[in-house]
């Protein structure tokens, strides 16, 4: 019997529409699984279905420690952080203790067990404040501390960093990682940000249109796009069809791996080159964003060291230094690629 959370052929239908399609996942205890997907992919729906939370009916199986699980059993096992921090009236400390209180821990003991988590998330000094006076970032921290304080076997995190500024986010990412390492729960993290997946999760599953597209160790999954959707999701926003590159497969490349070649430079033997017309050049400080129109659509380069003499409207050659093949993928209609 494996300890942890799992689901088999889990599907969720709402009003006749399938939001999640036959998803099978395993999250062993002590590990974190990131469910990565674009907006509207069904990530939150999947998370709730796995936690047996919310009103939607699902089909398939949810397993806890290898066996089927009832709603009451799951409720005792789970602690969840939803996208928006939903706090109760009362002090920060009382909120942090509320998960333990629901589990029958008495008031004083619950408070004592919750306080270290307020400290771990950097809000111990707010313990006696009214929870309604917290800023967005503080409320999010409290929501996470409240879930971690439970010490549950299953932890469900739904975009825990949404709506936070970059500095808070960076701090919180580090705090959360440290907390997860101490915690030992089977954790599911829903996110649309691959950097969060990389920082927090050993395993990653890619969810697009309610279907699992790829699943495996995070480092591997993030570097192996399977098709156009997952390529965009993983930051391989440049899709180069065979007609453009002369290669047998469509290639996917990150903007930061594309750079302009100066006229005389030799790209070297194996580097793929693409010709096009420079449409726009924007200095972003650390790098320059160059938009190049190719015969099969726009291409974006993030060049740290662009040639000095580039003129808009000129013909240029782009070297694609790293790329992935997307075998057998018909390229969708050319669309404006966006910088992720």
């Amino acid at each position, binding site marked *: 019997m494996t300890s942890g959370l799992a689901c088999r052929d889990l599907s969720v239908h709402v009003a006749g529409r399938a939001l999640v399609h036959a998803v099978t996942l395993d999250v062993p205890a002590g590990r974190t699984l990131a469910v990565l997907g674009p907006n509207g992919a069904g990530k939150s729906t999947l998370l709730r279905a796995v936690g047996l939370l919310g009103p939607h009916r699902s089909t398939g199986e949810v397993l806890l420690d290898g066996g089927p699980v009832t709603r009451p059993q799951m409720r005792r096992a789970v602690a969840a952080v939803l996208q928006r921090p*939903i706090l109760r009236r009362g002090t920060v400390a009382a909120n942090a203790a509320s998960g333990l209180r629901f589990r029958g821990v008495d008031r004083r003991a619950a408070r004592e067990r919750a306080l270290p988590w307020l400290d771990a998330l950097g809000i111990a000094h707010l313990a006696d404040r009214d929870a309604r006076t917290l800023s967005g970032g503080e409320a999010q921290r409290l929501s996470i501390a409240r879930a971690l304080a439970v010490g*549950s076997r299953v932890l469900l995190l739904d975009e825990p960093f949404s709506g936070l500024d970059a500095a808070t986010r960076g701090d919180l990412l580090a705090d959360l990682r440290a907390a997860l390492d101490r915690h030992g729960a089977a954790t599911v993290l829903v996110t649309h940000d691959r950097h969060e997946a990389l920082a927090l999760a050993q395993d990653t599953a890619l969810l697009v249109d309610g279907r699992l597209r790829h699943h495996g160790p995070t480092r591997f999954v993030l570097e192996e796009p399977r098709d156009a959707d997952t390529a965009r999701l993983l930051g391989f926003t440049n899709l180069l069809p065979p007609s453009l590159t002369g290669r047998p497969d469509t290639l996917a490349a990150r903007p930061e791996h594309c750079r302009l070649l100066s006229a005389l430079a030799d790209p070297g033997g194996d580097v793929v080159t693409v010709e096009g017309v420079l449409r726009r050049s924007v200095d972003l400080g650390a790098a320059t964003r160059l938009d190049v129109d190719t015969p099969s659509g726009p291409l974006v380069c993030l060049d740290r060291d662009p040639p000095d003499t580039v003129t808009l409207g000129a013909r240029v050659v782009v070297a694609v230094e790293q790329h992935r093949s997307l075998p057998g993928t018909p390229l969708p209609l050319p669309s404006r690629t966006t910088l992720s």
Partner: protein
Amino acid sequence: MDVLLDGLGEAVRLLVTGDQDTWAITALTLRVSLTATAVALLLGLPLGLAVALGRFPGRRVLLAAANTGMGLPPVVVGLFVTVLLWRSGPLGGLGLLYTPTAMVVAQAGIATPVVVALVAVAVQQVDPEFRVQMQGLGASRLRSLLALLGEARLPLLAAAMAAFGAVVSEVGAAQMVGGNLAGETRVLTTAAVLATSRGQFALAIAFGLVLLVIAFAVNLVLTLVQQGRVDAR
């Protein structure tokens, strides 16, 4: 002016000397109105919750009906209850007409829609994900519902105040189903109406004052409960 001043003086005298009739009428008023409010809360709370949180056909129609019912004329309710309890009516055999019980029934009928409508609003203004989040922290369905009620306790107590205010001050239904029988079903509002019609303004003012004091006292208690925890922080 004399009438008013005399009235006030007489009213104070009646209250201070502890006139037995006045106290009996006051006690009955409190008993009937508080019981009716309690019944309305018992019926209205689950109904309001169902209307606010449930998903069943006719939910919105029910809510609209409750909203309309907030402005239900007491005379209409009194008429219905009278017809129901009339000797030859469907429930005539119970012999309840012109008893305090009949007044409780009528007043509960007036207050229940108020409670349903205000409970629905109170509950719906809490985050719709609130119960999911509470269950996501280990709360059972019942526990998450209780947490939701706790979250909405300020507007819920306001609903109780509105219900009590509606019944303690109404006169139409109390008159029709109670009959204003001295010593049996005479309450402050009907007594005040009678005294006024007889030209006993002092007595009428005394009843009016007591009514105000009662309404204030009950609402003071509820307000202290409502605001107590707010100030405690």
